[in-house]
């Protein structure tokens, strides 16, 4: 059965692009356009992985990540933080909220696909270092 990936990003073009890419590689995609919706969908759909933008309306990516990871029912879902923000503090913060990986925009599609594969194969989040 195809793995299901939830993309949470407020840029519709990004959602379209990333979905295309993922679908072309055999994944199923669902999406949300703000933090609140993202959180709700994550709980409802229980995806195999979440790609999470940081600068989101209604609830920012860090908060969403933190809430998901703190909830034992969903903590095992791997989360890739996906963002155009990159400062040293931001990736440190990412570690603090329990993210499994950190991908910067503009992104290398190959790299993203590799990370998705690693994280969904393991089946549970193990704290792969951000990079």
């Amino acid at each position, binding site marked *: 059965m195809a793995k299901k990936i939830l993309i949470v990003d407020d*840029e519709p*073009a*990004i959602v379209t*692009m*990333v979905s*295309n*890419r993922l679908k*072309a590689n055999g994944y199923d995609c669902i999406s949300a356009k703000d933090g609140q919706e993202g959180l709700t969908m994550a709980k409802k759909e229980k995806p195999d992985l979440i790609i999470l933008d940081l*600068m989101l309306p209604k609830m920012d990516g860090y908060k969403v990540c933190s809430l998901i990871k703190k909830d034992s029912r969903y903590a095992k879902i791997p989360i890739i933080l996906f*963002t*155009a*923000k*990159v*400062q*040293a*503090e931001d990736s*440190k913060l990412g*570690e*603090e909220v329990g993210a499994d990986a950190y991908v*910067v*925009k*503009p*992104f290398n*599609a190959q790299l993203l696909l590799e990370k998705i594969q690693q994280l969904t194969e393991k089946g549970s989040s193990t704290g792969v270092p951000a990079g």
Partner: protein
Amino acid sequence: MERRKIKILLVEDNTTYAKLITDILSLEKNPPFHIEGATTLKESLERLAKGGIDLVLLDLSLPDSQGLETFDRIQSQSPLLPIVVLTGLDDQRIAIEIVRKGGQDYLVKGRVDGSLLASIIRHAIERKQAERVLKRAHIQTGQLLSSLTSILIGISPEGFITHWNTVAETTFGISASEVLGQPFSKCGVKWNAGSVLTSLEECRKKNRPLRLEDIRFQGHDGLERLLGFTLIPISGETEGSFEFLLFGADITARKQAEQIKNEFVSTVSHEFRTPLAIIKEGVSQVYEGVCGQITQTQRDTLKLSLEAIDRLGRIVEELLDISKIESGRIELRRELVDIVSLAKMSSLAFSSQTKAKGIQIKLNAPQDRLEIYADKDKVTQIFTNLMGNAIKFTEKGHIGISILDKGNGIECCVSDTGKGIAKEDIPKVFSKFEQFAREIGPGPKGTGLGLAICKGLIEAHRGKIWIESELGKGTRITFLLPKYTARELFKEYLGQHLKESVSYGAPLSLIIFELKDFDKIRKKIGNEQALLLVQDLESLVKQNLHRKSDLAIKNTDAVFVVLPTTEKSDALTIAEKIQQSYEKDLAKNSLGNDIKLACKVAGFPEDGNTEESLLNQTQL
């Protein structure tokens, strides 16, 4: 040398007495006196109005004026003149009153002798002079203080407020009259009083000005604001006693501007990178056939676009880097890195370019591994930049990379046999946007920021970078990365986080674990085993630390730990736990008797609010 005569106006209506005084005084030569007489108040005032008098000898009962009034009239006519009052036995009360009002002295008639009078006159004049100088200085100081645009608060050795200037009044919304004479600790300013008082203590102990930034306080409008100030100790009259001046300003606006600039960089970075990501991914997908098959021509065209997108991406990164460097926002994530392997890896990235051009890269290092605490990504960036430049400007010959251990640091050099740089251009090499040899030909021109960024990154490491070059011969760029001992790193980390703690009022703790008599241990069980002991300690410590901002760093015989946001009491618990666990393990390996683990804990705010006070507590 003839001494100037002291001119005295003798105001006395009893002519006999007046003559007596005049005669007495004319005998004095040191200094000589010149006496003028007046018998009424009116006459005195007229004479005084003409000037030239140094002192007034005044009898209070005159035909046209009596008692205090006489004095008052004379004093208002000539406020700068010393007045010595001549009084009868009955008038002593008034005379004392007059001295209190500013008269210099008084003499009881009938008890006057020449030398006493002369002495009184001399002292009266000197005293009046001194009063004048003091008053002038006081007025000047007052004017100076009131023209200040900074907060000025004066604190007496006993801790009471002696000065509270206008700026302090408006900043805190507390008037001087409310606080002058009150204890500083109760001045009513809504700030972290404990922190401020601790700093005062430290200033006293060190007898040195102390600067504090980012002290939060509540302004008069109730809004939270930020204060930056310097405490200046001034030696008091007795040994070891100090007055303090608190000299500062409301820095809220400045900090807000900094924050806006920072957010701007963040926002701009987001705004540039998001569309770039969309373009890149879109073009990639079409190029790779994800959206359907494409022709070769289409593929070739898109490839050019992809390369341009990457170029644009690099330029955006450079702009952001230089922006961060300029606003001092470079944050280093130091770890132990092997510079030699870093250089090797960077050079590998250029292997296709060098092959195409037919130039060699030679790596020269005395050892296979040279380790130093540095930010791996940033050092890689520096190497990549320097090598990229070297290759760009070299058509034939070779590129040399050398790495040397200089004892106090590691020196890396990237040299080439390329175009070189003209002597007059060398000083501009590390400036922003300067570019040389652009006539080299077509191809990427770059932003001219590369070397400026390298310089910024090296200086963030507290290192140095410099260049040697000769037109037509080649260029050498060398940089030095200073070696940081574990101790220095620990102190740097502590300093950074302590600053935040003080500003936010959040706690911070540090723990030092030390293996006692390490040399003896080394002799007993050998170097390798001893090293393992420290490594085990480090692992054990790290297992027990859970926050991302916790730092544990190992030294030869110790492990240093910084725990931001942890209370001292919790740190003590953690330290004890680790100590017990470690000693248990030692016992298991029958090393328990020989090896003891000491641990010392210090915390903010309990042990002070500077690195020194905390480290003192742990005797480091």
